[in-house]
Structures are given as structure tokens and as C-alpha cells.
């Protein structure tokens, strides 16, 4: 049986105070721009980074690993859910798309 290759990941979460979508950076900080997040190419590292994120309860809520791909502008979503989190709702120009 061949294992499926590991799909690159980022650690996503929501900010504790305002609930905004955030991602974990290589510097152990949280960014509101997914392009600045750490793209994790290795499964063991991903598990380790998620563990770190779970210990960040004073800053974020509900961290999870989610698929991402490398682009010239940094990590980008591969699924529409994460793309919506990056942009904001489609019925009003609110959230990140408004530069908030």
C-alpha cells in the first residue's frame, strides 16, 4: 500500500479577542495574512507546529491544520472554505477584504 504524499499545511485559528482568521508564522507569531504564514511540508513538523499552536490559548481559539499550496505570494488555500476565511463574506465588503 502506498501512502498518499503529505499535502503541505498551514496552522489556522481564530484570534481570541475579535475572532478574525489568523495563521501561524515561522516566528511563532500569528498573522492575519495567510501569505505570511509558515508553509509546512513535513507531517512530523506539522504535528509539532499544531501542538505549539494548541498551547497559544491566550492568543487564539481552535487551531487546526489545513491544506495550502506554495505561491509567489506565500501560502494560499486549496479549498474554498479557507479562501472565504481569507477574504470575508460574499454579501458585504466586510472582514479582511475591507482591509479590517
Amino acid at each position, binding site marked *: 500500500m502506498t501512502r498518499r504524499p503529505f499535502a503541505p499545511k498551514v496552522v489556522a485559528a*481564530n484570534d*481570541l*479577542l*475579535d*475572532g*478574525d*482568521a489568523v495563521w501561524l508564522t515561522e516566528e511563532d507569531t500569528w498573522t492575519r495574512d495567510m501569505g505570511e504564514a509558515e508553509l509546512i511540508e513535513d507531517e512530523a513538523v506539522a504535528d509539532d507546529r499544531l501542538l505549539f499552536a494548541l498551547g497559544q*490559548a*491566550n492568543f487564539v*481559539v*481552535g487551531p487546526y491544520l489545513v491544506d495550502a499550496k506554495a505561491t509567489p505570494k506565500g501560502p494560499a488555500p*486549496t*479549498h*474554498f*472554505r479557507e479562501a*472565504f*476565511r481569507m477574504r*470575508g*463574506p*460574499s*454579501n*458585504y465588503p*466586510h*472582514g*479582511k477584504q475591507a482591509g479590517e
Partner: protein
Amino acid sequence: MYHYNDFDEAFVRERVAQFRGQVERRIDGSLTEDEFKPLRLMNGLYLQLHAYMLRVAIPYGTLNSRQMRQLAMIADRWDKGYGHFTTRQNIQFNWPKLGEVPDILEALADVEMHAIQTSGNTIRNVTADHFAGAAADEIADPRPVAELIRQWSTDHPEFQFLPRKFKIAVTGSPNDRAVTRAHDIGLRMVRNDAGEPGFEVIVGGGLGRTPMIGQVIRDFVAQQDLLPYLEAIVSVYNLLGRRDNKYKARIKITVAENGIDEIRARVEAQFEQSKAEWGGFDQELLARIEHSFAPPVFKRAGLEKFNANLAANGAFRAWCDTNLSEHRDPEHAIVTVSIKAHGATPGDASSTQMRVLADLAERLGYDELRISHEQNVILPHVHKSDLPEIYATLRDHGLATANVGLISDIIACPGMDYCALATARSIPVAQEIATRFDELKLEHEIGPLKIKISGCINACGHHHVGHIGILGLDRAGVENYQITLGGDGTETATIGERTGPGFPADEIVPAVERLVGAYLEHRKSEEETFLQTYRRLGMDPFKAALYPEKAQSRAA
């Protein structure tokens, strides 16, 4: 309207103070998220895709102008200037900040409102017919009983950790506008052969992943036995309901797995055992509550002005045709204000619109407003001579859309534009369908047609009981929409049937257009509604319209 007594006031204030402390301890790190989450959910605070969301209860959908103005104030001060009215007669604020939520709850308490038990595995906000106390077809106003149930269920010590959430709906009318058959418990006010008031009790209905129509557990429960009987049902469920599997934890599954007869026997036994403990205090309370729901003194002003306007103004006449319902007083009407302008988000009202509605209610509507489960706002008592002024004011604020009950009066859950549970978006689909049929100028010709859209299997958008139901799913990383047909949320409640494979986002509006085309082609007359045509002909002509390639290949 009911007004808080000292007990209610003290209880709600105490809960605000408790939650303020809990939020402070979460922010300073004394509480973990695991510890905090059940506490915030008990106060209606969710975490969604982009922000926190606060769900505020509007008990049995009833509001006065002061409360509506306070919701507008909250929207402006702590949110983004709007609120979202939901299918459970609640209002949701989509952008509150954690540290400010206690202030919002304090502002709600100032106008006798709260967010308690709008989440969690408790008895949720009790819903009722949005025409309660006004409808011509009503036997009795269901709101006093709904308020009694609110008081009984709020902070009920035995029912704070049920196997799963629990929803109760009440109607006082034989025409069921409260979808009682799709609730954990549905109550229909009836009279027995001796003319005494009581309730038909329906149990085990629900939508979601396993949609079921509720079954009658008792065809008559006398009014004085209602709370003991409800308590017996919820106690039996609390013990018997499954806690091993979230998806099998609702009472509908308990009823389905054990059978209605077994549940009935257990409930009767429990009821016999505990009813003597009640001692009648609840009936004293109910009498006091009933007093506060006494109908207003309806004014007399004649109908000449109304009739003259009706004859002179076509747009006003069209609005009256769709947005008015028969009031129990012949000089009055029930006004449904559509919160479904073509292309707008179903159920979203701006703070300005909320204030306009509050002003109209205060000035011309006996200070009463209702929120319907269909995400519209109701002015339940309006003298017909005041309708022209109401219409003109609504029109000035984008609130005079004449589409109630028509194809663009769509129920839609927030979907993946906001909701963390959603598998696809709902709002853009609703916007596109409404915009498209407005362009076609067909909706009045199509007539009564209910489209209901959910962005996941949990069915907050009631898609199973839509004449056309749309369910948004994630199919291999792409939004995909399944269609059901023939659903009905009224007294003839029916779960819709799936048509077949779903449609991608850019094909769902054309698919709905083909369905409507098939209806227009096959209906016997203009009087035969979509639902009637579907019931007469069944799925075949609609399937053929939806999947033309398949129909062709079968013919070949």
C-alpha cells in the same frame, strides 16, 4: 406584552455579571477555551469563520419598539450596522468583539432581552406563530403559554445538559405557521369536546441530517397539565436519549428507535408520578402572564381612505395583495414587511431599517413587532386607514418589496459566508434566484412558492420543508447544490424528496428556472400552485426538466 418582574430582572442581570467575569478570566488566561466554550455558548456566543457571533433570543418572535431600537443601537455601536433575523425568531450579530459582549448583554438586559439558552444542549428559544394574537383564524394567543414555557425552561436545573438541543414551538391556529411538526415538541392549541382549552402535543419532529415529521404523543393535554406533561417528556428524553453519538442524540431518534408507544408509556408514567408535585403555582403564573398579553383596544377609523388608495395606487394594491394577512378585527390587517428585497441578504435589516420599523410600530402599530421564522418582520396590528402611510414609509427605506410568499421570499441560513459548520454558501444563491426572477418579471405569475436554502445538512434554512429545497454541500472541494421538491412546513407537513444529482454553483439558478418552467407548463390553471402541481404529477416532469440529457438518453 410581557414585562420582566423583579425575579426576571435580577436573574438576567446576574447572568450578565457572571459572564462579564468569565470573559475577563478567559482573556487574562485563567480559563482555557475548553472551560470557557460551554460558558459562552450558554450565553449565545459562537465563534464563526471571521468573527464571534452573538445570537439573541426574541422569545416567540415578539418585540416592542424600544427593544427594536436597542437592537439597532447595538448594531451601530458594537457591530457593523445591521442584524440578521433567523429562522428561529432570533437575531444574530455577526461581528461582536469578545471583550465587548458583556456590554452588549447589559444593553439587552436594559430592554428585557437576553441571549440565554440560544445555544447549547438546552431548551432553546420557544418559537410561536408570528401572527399570534392577531390572526383571524386563531383559536387562542399562544404567547402566554410560550412565555410560561420560557420561564419554566430558563435555567431549569434538570435540563441544562440534555443529550442535545431541544426546540419547542407553539401555535394557536389550525393553520400552522410555526412549523410545529418539525420541532422536538410541537404544541397546537385545541379545545376538547367539552370546549376546554388544551394542547395537541407532537413529539419527535426535526430537520437536520435525519429529517422527521413529529408524531402526536397525546391528542389532548389540559392547559393545567401542560408544564408537568412537558417536563415528563423532557425527563424521559434526558434519560433515554443517546449521548454516545451526537447524530443520534435528538429526541426524533429516541422516538424513532424506541417507538412512539414506548415513549408515550414512559411519559405517561412519569407524568402520573410527578404532576401532583406541581400544586398549581404555574397556573397562577400563567394567569398573570395572560393579563400582560391582553389585546390592544383596536381603534375605529373607517375604511374609506384605505379603499380610495387601493383604487388609485397600483403599486400599493400589489403590495397589499402579497404582504397583508387577515386580522381578527375586520378594520385591521397584519402587515408582513419583507426583509427580502431582490438581491439583498434574506433576513438582514440595517439599523436604519430597524428604527423605521420601530417608529412605525410605535406610531401606527400598537407598539408591537414580530419576527417570523421566514425571516421577515411583522406589524401584527395595523388599522387599514394607516396602511398607505406605512407603505410609503417602508418604500422610502427599501422595505416595501411586494413578494411575501413568492419565489424571492427565500429562507436562507448564513451558510459559508459566516457559519463555521457550513459546507457551502447559501446567501449568494438566494440573492441570485431573487434577482433572476425579478428580471424575468415572473414571480407574481408563478404565485405562492417557497424556496428554502441551507448551507449544510443541519438544515437551519429548513430546506426539507421548502416547496423547492436547496442544500449546499462540499463535493470534492467544490460547492454543490442538491434539490428537494414537495416539502411543506404547514399543518400538512411533508419532507421534500431529492431529485437526483446536485448542481454546481453556476448551474443552480438555471436549474431552478427549469423547475419553474416545468411548473408553468404543467399547471392545470393559474390557481394551481407549484406544490399542488407537484402533488398531482409527482417528480417525473420536474426531473425531466432538471436533467434534460438523461431524459433524452432514455428516449433514444
